């Protein structure tokens, strides 16, 4: 027994070391984002760009949610705009009614009494809870109705897209409830006495975004590293076998979908308050929801770092390209879809992990390095066997 204990401990030690390194990396990155970036941007006198960075980081939160549901569980949701919009509208509605008066547009359309579902948004704590719970509940109900019938694959994708369209019409249609296409502007509203679009409030929101992104990453990391995460991957790879092993995948899928929806809601609230407006067109467009998926695909699905990386990189490219060449962006985006799907199925992170640098080097005449089987080297089982073997040899 004592012979067995030693190698197990050493793999555990290695795991702990890896975890420690990861925590240090997150802390360093977090400090860079939270402290260094604003300092640099303000020093360069482009402080208004901080808002853009904050937006990209809030989009990274929703990318994490999509990675959970698509990268790990294999369910391609094309309707995350619903949850994104629900989060965004929740916060915007609170900003509109916090002072107890009717929003301007309602009086304009002849509504003299606050609709019943606007009432609770007068309280701030309720709004904070609603931002998380409302998208979560909608995702849970939709997920339950769909997964219970074992609807999956492309059917699930189409149904989520249709659901997105339904919510789009719902928010766009009755103009006296949500101001229709014009949406809710949060720019000029106040939060605890300060105007939302002022620099100090925006800075606070930026910091909150960084903190929540780190929290979302840790949550996803925790979810995907344990037994729950392995079950998700098992559902992705062979759902029937999971079912035959005695698990009911429905519950797990509903839970993951709900968590993913909650992350999307948080992202939506942060994004819309940093954009200054929330409309059906900028949160619930079909194209936008599909674009979210491509962030994860570009970064590398099934890797949490990839989701964050992809979201930030693609939105950055979008901002730069559509500022300079508005026509070019759609060509570029379409090309990105084709390229990622056909040439780079594992995304940037997957490319690096699969020895992409060496392959790129070999194109320019550098010799390809000879590999053993890296998967074998990393396999803890093999490591353990090897250590046991070495120990018996030395004795």
């Amino acid at each position: 027994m004592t012979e067995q204990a030693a190698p197990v401990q050493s793999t555990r030690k290695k795991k702990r070391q890896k975890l420690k390194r990861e925590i240090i990396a997150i802390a360093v990155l977090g400090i860079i984002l939270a402290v260094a970036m604003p300092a640099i941007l303000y020093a360069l006198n482009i402080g208004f760009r901080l808002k853009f960075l904050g937006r990209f980081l809030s989009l990274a939160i929703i990318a994490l949610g999509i990675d959970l549901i698509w990268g790990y569980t294999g369910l391609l949701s094309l309707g995350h705009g619903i949850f994104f919009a629900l989060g965004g509208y929740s916060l915007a509605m609170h900003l509109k009614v916090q002072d107890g008066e009717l929003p301007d547009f309602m009086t304009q359309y002849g509504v003299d009494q606050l609709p019943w579902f606007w009432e609770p948004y007068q309280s701030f704590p309720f709004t904070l809870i609603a931002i998380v719970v409302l998208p979560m509940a909608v995702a849970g109900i939709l997920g339950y109705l769909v997964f219970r019938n074992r609807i999956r694959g492309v059917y699930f994708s189409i149904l989520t897209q249709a659901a997105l369209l339904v919510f789009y019409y719902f928010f766009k249609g009755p103009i006296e409830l949500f101001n229709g296409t014009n949406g809710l502007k949060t720019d000029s509203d106040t939060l605890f006495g300060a105007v939302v679009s002022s620099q100090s409030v925006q800075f606070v929101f930026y910091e909150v975004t960084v903190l929540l992104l780190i929290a979302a990453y840790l949550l996803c990391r925790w979810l995907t590293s344990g037994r729950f995460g392995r079950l998700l991957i098992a559902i992705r790879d062979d759902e029937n076998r999971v079912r035959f092993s005695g698990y009911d995948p429905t519950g797990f899928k509903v839970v993951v979908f709900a968590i993913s929806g909650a992350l999307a809601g948080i992202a939506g609230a942060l994004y819309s308050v940093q954009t200054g407006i929330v409309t059906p067109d900028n949160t619930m467009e079909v194209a936008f929801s599909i674009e979210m998926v491509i962030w994860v695909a570009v970064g590398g699905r099934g890797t949490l770092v990839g989701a964050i990386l992809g979201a930030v990189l693609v939105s950055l490219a979008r901002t730069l390209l559509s500022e300079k060449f508005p026509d070019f962006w759609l060509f570029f985006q379409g090309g990105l879809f084709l390229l990622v799907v056909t040439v780079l199925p594992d995304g940037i992170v997957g490319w690096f992990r699969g020895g992409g640098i060496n392959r790129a080097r070999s194109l320019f005449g550098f010799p390809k390095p000879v590999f053993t089987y890296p998967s074998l080297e990393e396999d803890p089982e093999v490591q353990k066997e090897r250590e046991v073997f070495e120990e018996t040899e030395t004795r």
Partner: protein
Amino acid sequence: MLEQILEILFNVISIGSVLLLAALGLAIVFGLMGVINLAHGELMMLGAYSTYVVQQGFELWAKDALDYYLWVALPVAFIFTALVGVLLEKGVIRFLYGRPLETLLATWGVSLILRQFVRSVDGVLLIGIALFCLLFFGGMWVLRRRVNWESTRDRAIAILLPLSLAITSIASILLGKNEALTNKWFGSRNLDITFPSWLDENLSPENLPNWLAWLGNWMKSVGLEDFSVPRTRLFIIGLTIVCLLGVYLFLNRSNWGLRIRAVTQNRSMSACLGIPTRQVDAFTFALGSGLAGIAGCAVTLIGSVGPNMGGNYIVDAFMVVVVGGVGNLFGSILAALGISTANYLISVETFVPMFEALQTQVAFLKPLWESFVTFFEFFGTSSMAKVLVFALIIAFLQIRPAGIFPQKGRSVEL
């Protein structure tokens, strides 16, 4: 009363036939190949634009025959979109068989590119694409004859791609100085197509053709002299019936149809028996795309042509396919009619007057009817009707998860 019923029936069939026409190509490609084509709406758009081009061509060169441009536009739209479909299949989808989610994303990419292409197509863009294809694919074709092609392929791409991109962009910047070449062909605004004059007016018992005079007399005798229908709608219904019949006969009576059905049922067995499965795939996809082109041509009769028109139909068309059951023409027909019925009844506020009438007759149920009235008034607009229709579809899928006619089989898969 009879007139109202007939009107509802006609409207339902007419909306349903547009839905069905849009869904027909999709149903074939999805049902037979398992490929989700999100660019289907954009193929419809291409069909509509080719109709526009044909009409403009008639106006320029054959003004006398302008009334008959539709008869040229239909085959042109079919052939053009079928060719685009073949290109799409050979260039993208061929590599993605068996990976439906990836196909979905790739075709979405294609649809974005097509949308922007139509907006910004001009002489420079076209010459640039031709030049790039000539340089890149031509260069690859020349290099392919080398002995050690397999080992140098990656390097050849790495050199050729940036080189030809650079040459193309320099050439297009130089060409961009030419005014005649930078004129956008279509632009991003919506274009209107004038109908042929024989589709212009409504059809009523008064102006029926001679061989249908008996029908007109009969309609007058039962009190339907005011009942009239637009000819464009009738034309679309007729076109849908012709397309349905054509597809049915093609799949069930022709050699290629037999091959397509064989490949659908068992790909590897068909390949063993000498059916060229690759060709069958390309052919099926071309057929589906061509039907999208016809749908696009028909849609020009009820709306304007624009870069974003494809998006209006794609989700509804998918709903038809999902509700109908995959790979089943009859299911698609039923689903299209069902969805259009639900859509029409809710959106035209048929229920509101009905419940209001009931309210006066049955007094003790008044609060119930009133709540019904407010409910249907809220969902009465055409966009809110979609909300209710989707709820109905979800409810329907709870009862029959695989559509009206599910594929029979013993596999555990859906």
